[in-house]
């Protein structure tokens, strides 16, 4: 899969999307607005994960450790620092996640491929264990409930406890972040990680310190995940160990992969599809995880490009340009 810089194919849907989202509360019932807020939060989480998986080719089974860290820091900070503003709570979370990213990254990134995947999983388990055991801070199995403070910013006063208001708050701030991520994929760093994935050895001989670049990216995505986690805590007004559990990693993996690692908006699509499916399916059957799993396997086997990959190749098929290498993101070099 090639990423032509400024690929219009990924811009226009983007604009349409934003328009639709801004209007959503006008025609959607409250419940769905709430659901959409969740989608937005997960979209950020998934995008951050895809920067790792789709762009850097690093398959991590530990992304939830950052997501969870973000969620917990927000919860704890808001509980213990009275009068803390939303913004600072989020920033604190990001800072914590960044720190976690640097430390774990330094340990993990000496390894690649399967070993890396395995280690990330183990580290996620470690974070989980700590969150469970460290009762005094995290509330262990009880979790922590979060009070969403109101937003006072440059004279603007917003009552975030109102669902629609919080929706717009999330949409705008998170939207901006995702926008930046899109820009990121065209920056020097963005391209560097891609090239390192394509051919690390050559990058070394072209003068790049690939360890540094990998660490930077790992930390960056960790910070983003932490931010998503923070929003998650605010949205949910509760933080429990499931926010830092391996299931939470699985969730983002499914979202990202179903949406498609090949294109930037794939994961966003994935977050939407996953959340809606989850919401609908879990009413109908409590077997919905099984269905998710099956979808996932089928995709790994037949549609490695995910939904977006499918769309792209269909579009190319229609356009006649046979989609030969439509979204084949994970060209993992065999060890």
């Amino acid at each position, binding site marked *: 899969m090639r990423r032509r810089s400024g690929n219009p194919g990924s811009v226009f849907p983007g604009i349409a999307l934003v328009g639709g989202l801004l209007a959503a509360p006008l025609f959607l019932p*409250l*419940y769905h607005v*709430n659901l959409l807020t969740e989608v937005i939060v997960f979209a950020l989480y998934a995008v951050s994960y895809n920067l790792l998986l789709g762009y850097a080719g690093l398959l991590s089974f530990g992304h939830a450790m950052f997501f969870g860290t973000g969620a917990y820091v927000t919860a704890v900070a808001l509980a213990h620092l009275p009068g803390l503003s939303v913004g600072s709570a989020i920033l604190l979370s990001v800072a914590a996640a960044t720190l976690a990213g640097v430390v774990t990254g330094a340990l993990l990134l000496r390894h690649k491929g399967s070993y890396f995947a395995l280690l990330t999983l183990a580290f996620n388990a470690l974070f989980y264990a700590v969150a*469970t*055991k460290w*009762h005094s801070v995290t*509330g*262990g*199995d*009880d*979790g922590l*409930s979060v009070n969403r403070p109101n937003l006072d910013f440059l004279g603007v006063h917003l009552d975030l*406890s109102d*669902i629609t208001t919080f929706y717009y708050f999330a949409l705008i701030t998170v939207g901006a972040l995702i926008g930046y991520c899109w820009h990121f994929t065209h920056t020097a760093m963005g391209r560097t990680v891609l090239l390192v994935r394509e051919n690390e050895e050559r990058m070394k001989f072209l003068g790049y310190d690939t360890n540094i670049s990998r660490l930077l990216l790992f930390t960056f995505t960790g910070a983003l995940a932490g931010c998503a986690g923070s929003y998650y805590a605010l949205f*949910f*007004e*509760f933080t*429990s160990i*499931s*926010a830092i559990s391996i299931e939470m990693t699985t969730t983002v993996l499914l979202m990202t992969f179903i949406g498609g690692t090949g294109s930037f908006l794939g994961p966003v699509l994935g977050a939407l599809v996953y959340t809606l499916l989850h919401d609908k399916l879990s009413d109908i059957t*409590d077997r919905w995880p099984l269905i998710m799993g099956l979808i996932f396997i089928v995709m790994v086997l037949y549609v490695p490009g995910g939904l977006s990959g499918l769309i792209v190749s269909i579009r190319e098929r229609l356009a006649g340009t046979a989609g030969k290498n439509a979204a084949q993101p994970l060209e993992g070099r065999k060890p």
Partner: protein
Amino acid sequence: ADTIKLGVVEPLSGTFKDIGERYLAGVQYAADEINAAGGLLGRKVEVIPIDSEVKPDVATRKATKLILKEGVNFFCGGTGSSVGAAMSALMEKQGGLFFTYGMDAASLTGEKCNRHFFRPGGSTDGRSYALAQWVVKNGYKRVAGIAQDYSFGQEAMAAFKKKLKELDPTVEMVAELYHPLGTKDYAPYISQLIAAEPEVVFTSNWGNDLMLLLKQGKPMGLKAKFVCYYANDDVLIKGIADDEAVIGSIGAEVYMLSIPTEANKAFVKKYHEAKGHYPTWLIGKGYTATMFWAEAVKKAGTTNVRKVIQAWEGLSYDGPAGTWTMRACDHQAQVPYWIGEIVKENPFFDHAYVADATMIPAEDVAVPCEETGCKAMGK
């Protein structure tokens, strides 16, 4: 008129499925009885089961959905104090009402209390006090304790120790162990218990955690008598499939099948005729609490949450388990406790079960308002 919706937050899948289902059965039975008698304020009570998976986030997610979509504002549940804490917080935000008959962590009506949360049932304090009294009464000196490592377990243990010291300073706590929820291999803990050589072992474990503890205890050579929160559980005893492992254990509850009062005998008879099985502990607790809630709604004469809250505070209710009074200062019902020993012969099952229960009056186990740590009730 449309129905009065009551969301029942219980584990309906997963390890604690059987617990949740029995609570639900109790609530459902109460609802049926009410509806049969013409309903509540002339409206039918509609029970909406919610599978909490004993996960706070799952419970609140589903509850929120019901609030936003269906406008439900009465909820109840009995499993997982962690779920209770989360629901309590949610209710305060969404202006709903939650009551529990099984989430016993004292903190729920203590520092975590709020006006939207009621506990028509037992608490770790009450129950631990009751058991402590029994231990002292029977003159045991070497006591060990093991509990699940979450707020419920910790509070149960703390209260037990506190009361023990109060009643008889010479009693010795020879071991105090905590294990993660859902532990499978109790060997390392049992070995420690054995090494401590206690006469009785106190445990607030429940469900699978209690089953495995009792099951694995004997084979490893643990002789001591178990003093349990939830030993009077037929499903558990059946599950252990080894009466020897349970006989002699002690259970304390706010409701037991074997409460020897007329009121209870009548209730048990009626239920058994209707359902063909007995209203064991959880069913009874669910039933009694729901009836109590209904009383409050009746008194309020409306489903307006604020009104119902006011109505419930101070209200008393005579049920199968004696007289329950909802205290205004912390929304903790003042209830008598019932203690029974597991014996081989019993009128209900062909496996071992609790013998006739003896009552410990509410006053003896009451926690004074000022000690609960509940501040949030100021009107």
